[in-house]
């Protein structure tokens, strides 16, 4: 195979796998930011919280980290539901959710990070999944399971969430609350309860993304910082309340980053990826799959 073609194909494949990780990180935010209009800037910090809890549990039990992150999902759901109750009581109910709400989640982010340092120290934590050292060779294309397995689990979880949102009564109520919260009351549905449930799901996905992250790379309390810009960009690029758009945008982000790094150097990757975001917004201000207001 032509070396440049092999480089391109490997760039695309590794970009798709990286995009799977980005999709895991962005899916929860797509619910909270895209559907509930809650600017949860602490979302990546909760992802890191999940990653570090998984690392500790892995060290204690030796269970698969992705399995552990799935087992942790109910705890993260409860944490998210509790956090939403606080947010709603002090900010949303008073109509202060814009700047004050943003400041609240900034504060939550710092509390999570400092709490993690106090609890587990500032060092990096890691897991050694049984499959992490294996790489499949498909001709000249390398597919490391360290990237493939987390991406597959993440995409499967997002698929299950999409089915839930589309086919269950509660799921459709969550989709509806994104469009018209007052209309829900006419159907005798409490929008606050629905938003609490949805925010819990959002944080459960943060925990799941943490499990994926710690399989891919070592994690410390501040590892979430590099994801803040990316996950918001992906959710906006995908069209805010569209899970499918979020996944597509995440995969595109990964491919653009890795192909650019392969041919033009890694310094250009963020510039080109965020340049693509601007281009998409210039052509489709509502994002790839968003609806015009």
């Amino acid at each position, binding site marked *: 195979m032509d070396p440049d073609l092999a480089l391109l194909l490997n760039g695309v494949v590794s970009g798709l796998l990286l995009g799977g990780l980005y999709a895991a990180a962005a899916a929860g935010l797509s619910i909270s930011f895209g559907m509930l209009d809650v600017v949860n800037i602490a979302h990546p910090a909760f992802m890191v919280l999940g990653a570090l809890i998984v690392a500790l549990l892995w060290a204690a039990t030796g269970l698969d980290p992705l399995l552990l992150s799935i087992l942790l999902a109910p705890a993260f759901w409860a944490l998210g539901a509790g956090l939403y109750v606080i947010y709603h009581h002090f900010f949303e109910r008073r109509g202060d959710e814009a700047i004050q709400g943003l400041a609240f989640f900034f504060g939550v982010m710092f509390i999570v990070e400092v709490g993690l340092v106090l609890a587990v120290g500032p060092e990096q*934590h890691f897991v050694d999944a049984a499959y992490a050292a294996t790489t499949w060779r498909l001709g000249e294309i390398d597919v490391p399971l360290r990237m493939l397995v987390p991406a597959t689990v993440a995409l499967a979880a997002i698929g299950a969430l999409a089915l839930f949102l589309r086919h269950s009564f509660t799921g459709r109520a969550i989709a509806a609350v994104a469009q018209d919260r007052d209309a829900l009351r006419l159907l005798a549905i409490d929008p606050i309860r629905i938003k609490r449930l949805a925010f819990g799901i959002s944080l459960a996905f943060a925990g799941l993304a943490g499990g994926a992250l710690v399989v891919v790379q070592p994690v410390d309390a*501040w590892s979430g910082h590099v994801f803040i810009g990316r996950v918001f960009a992906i959710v906006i690029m995908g069209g805010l309340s569209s899970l499918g758009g979020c996944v597509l945008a995440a995969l595109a982000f990964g491919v653009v980053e890795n192909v650019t790094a392969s041919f033009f150097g890694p310094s250009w990757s963020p510039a080109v990826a965020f340049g693509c975001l601007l281009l998409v917004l210039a052509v489709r201000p509502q994002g790839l799959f968003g609806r015009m207001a």
Partner: protein
Amino acid sequence: MEGLSRRGLGHAALAAAITVPAMAKAQTAASGPPIRIGYSMSLSGGLAGNGRPALLAHRIWAEDVNAKGGLLGRPVQLVHYDDQSTGAQVPGIYTKLIDVDKVDLVISGYATAIIAPAMPVVMQRQMAFVSLFGTGVNADFKYDRYFSINPAGSQVKETFAKGFFDIAMAMDPKPRSIALVNLDSDFHQRTAESARFLAKEHKLRVVYDRAYPPSTVDFSPIIRSVQAARPDIVFVGSYPPDTAGMLRAASELRANFALFGGPMIGPHITAQKLQLGPILNNLVVWDVYAPEPTLQFPGTQALIERYQPLAAKENTDALGHYVPPLAYAQMQVLEQAVKRVGRIDQAALAADMHANSFDTVIGPLRFDALGEWAEERNLYTQYQGIQGNGIEQFRKAGTQVILYPPRYKSGDLRTPYTAGA
């Protein structure tokens, strides 16, 4: 901060009540107001992984000095604030230390990014300043009371990568091409500049020369592009999270280079040694210390033996081979200068540090006009024979052999680097 809070004073009073009767019997008991040494230290944030071991080494030094009767007969007290690994916090911290806390002496926290922001405040107050792991900080300030505890020396461009190139050019066959990869950071820009300079000196063809941003998540495109460029040797400058990503990617992509390494900061931290295990085999890494018999000085082993149980208790870097010896030496330089001068006089302390050499746990030191080490001591080491991920092998000689400089050499180069394959 330690030593100034109400609770801290209570603890100190209690400790004094318990220890004074015993101390009174000693001829060399420290007395009088303490000599207060102020500094910022990264106890949270990205640099905390090295900041906390540094602080632990400082505390061991303070205990040692106070147990021997203090400094000039007075106890020493450490006054430190957490800079959160943020340079913007540093000027305010040093202003408070000098103007409000009225400390007697100042030293730096860990790393160039924290040392440089302290310099204007320290220079304005004309304090002698012993820094820790700063690279080329004084090249622009040219402050005559600055002294650096970092083996890089003042000729970074000419000497930093010299060990790596000397090792490479002694290989048979000699390499003809090189790839350069570095993180886009101040330290790694300087090290890459050194590698570029020496590649030209040795007439090596540079087939890949790219920096990567700190936000990089996936390193496989970088390794794959380097492989496509087909270099004989690869010089990499990276920080811990990137080093792990880079070496994992090298392993997954079946990397095979005659020589691979450089200032890849990461395996210096115990957790990363354990995580990477055999992937480190044959990696050539810039370092400041390795537990080899050729690099033992009075006090080195004793310090590490005291550090390790405390580190386990405080949940910080378990082995303490990287920062603690240098952090302890930082305090020894200050201690020896104060003892020789016999008083706290910033000008006299600086003059003494320029004029004399120091015996430390990392060996004898002497400073040049810029306050850097008169004789650079960049170590290039190679991990060899690692099996599994156990910690005990890293405590023993022979696991991280020293290849350069020749006077500390403890083993021979093994090639190629295959990332654990």
